[in-house]
């Protein structure tokens, strides 16, 4: 393997070129398959080291690798006009719940939020490519369960869900345990009925006035 300062060897160059040219993040397996089953792990490590201090860096997001611009240059590169979809408070909350609790059913999301979640909210997140249907829970009713996608990790700059902010503390505090609080559930239960007509329950992905996001 080449030294940091010297010229990179052919495999490193090949991995570098492949990832530069790729239209989307690639798994190690995909890179390897593209390069004739070469062993690319070490080359990725070397590239990651090489790019560490540069304007572009090599990152791993959900087992997929891609180059992206260094975050400290955001102020220079940020494109105001192309701001990603603004999510409503409801949508960001649901997204966080899916990420921290995945896989999670809609009923479980609702139990945490204390309100019904409009179908549109999950649709918005799935359309953004951040949430996917991850099968069904094998319990009565076989509810659909949701999970995050590799695009979610890539978008929010996470190598894996383990890097979610504060997740270890939340888990230690028991705040990510399954919700099975029958008593309060019963107290809140009526809101599942009254919810549809209740004012202010704009779960449709549109932030209402007066709410700070």
């Amino acid at each position: 393997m080449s030294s940091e300062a010297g010229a990179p060897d052919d495999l490193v160059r090949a991995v570098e070129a492949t990832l530069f040219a790729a239209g989307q993040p690639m798994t190690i397996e995909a890179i390897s398959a593209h390069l004739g089953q070469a062993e690319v792990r070490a080359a990725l490590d070397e590239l990651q080291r090489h790019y560490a201090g540069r304007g572009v860096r090599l990152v791993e997001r959900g087992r997929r690798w891609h180059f992206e611009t260094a975050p400290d240059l955001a102020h220079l590169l940020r494109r105001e006009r192309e701001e990603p979809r603004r999510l409503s408070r409801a949508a960001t909350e649901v997204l966080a719940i899916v990420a921290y609790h995945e896989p999670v059913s809609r009923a479980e999301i609702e139990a945490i939020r204390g309100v019904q979640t409009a179908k549109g909210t999950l649709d918005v997140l799935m359309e953004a490519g951040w949430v996917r249907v991850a099968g069904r829970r094998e319990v009565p009713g076989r509810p659909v369960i949701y999970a995050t996608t590799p695009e979610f990790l890539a978008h929010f700059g996470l190598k894996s869900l383990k890097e979610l902010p504060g997740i270890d503390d939340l888990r230690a505090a028991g705040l990510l345990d399954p919700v099975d609080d029958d008593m309060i559930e019963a107290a809140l239960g009526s809101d599942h009925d009254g919810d549809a007509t209740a004012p202010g329950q704009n779960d449709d992905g549109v932030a209402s006035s007066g709410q700070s996001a």
Partner: protein
Amino acid sequence: MDLPPDIAPEPLGAAEIAWDGAATAETRTEALYLEIDGWEGPLDLLLDLARRQKVDLRRISILELVDQYLTYIEQAEALRLELAADYLVMAAWLAYLKSALLLPKDEQEDPSPEELALRLQLRLQRLGAMREAAARLMGRDRLGRDVFARGAPEGLRVDRRNRWQCEWFDLIRAYGDVKIRAEPVVHMVRERMVMTLDSAIQRVSSMLGVAIDWMDLRDFLPHASEAWANPQLRRSALASSFVAALELARTGRAELAQEETFGPLRLKAVRR
């Protein structure tokens, strides 16, 4: 970034993190009663009220929280704001919880009101934690907003290249086929031996002219000598002669008769 993703929060716990943003509650204080639309259900309102206590969520006073909630509901009713049913159900449940909390310990049911209060607290903590997590998530360096992938990737392509196959014999046979197709018309006409309709009409009418009585159609056919021995040609002659007979009958020059189905077809000239 005010929330660097890589810096672990203080071990104090998630609840503190969750209440970083309590300042926003202040701006809402006077607008509290006008903002019924601002909450997503009673739990959301409770959480907002709890934030006003400005303490760790684990240390909030549930009794105080209940009072605040009930006060809010009362004032909303005084202002004739229409409250959704779930706000009222929560109010009833909290009123019950409050009275249970104030009752002497020995009259407690199971689960105890303390445990119920604890569960409510946990509920609020959970929702608060997720709300804060969402804010931190949104504040991260986001791909396409703060960091960018390559703008114009060349793209990786796997081209499927066809390796065309063709055998020598296929090539030669294909040429043979083309050659055969190239002259089909001449070929077919020369090979096929038929008696044409014109010659049949001529033949039948001239023979009828000399006949005196009814004649079987078959008698008009040429004798099966060497030139007419071919069975295909004989069938053609029979068919043409039949059509000729029909044509002569149609134009009034002959009469046709058949005694029974599939019986011999006979014809005779019409004398004028």
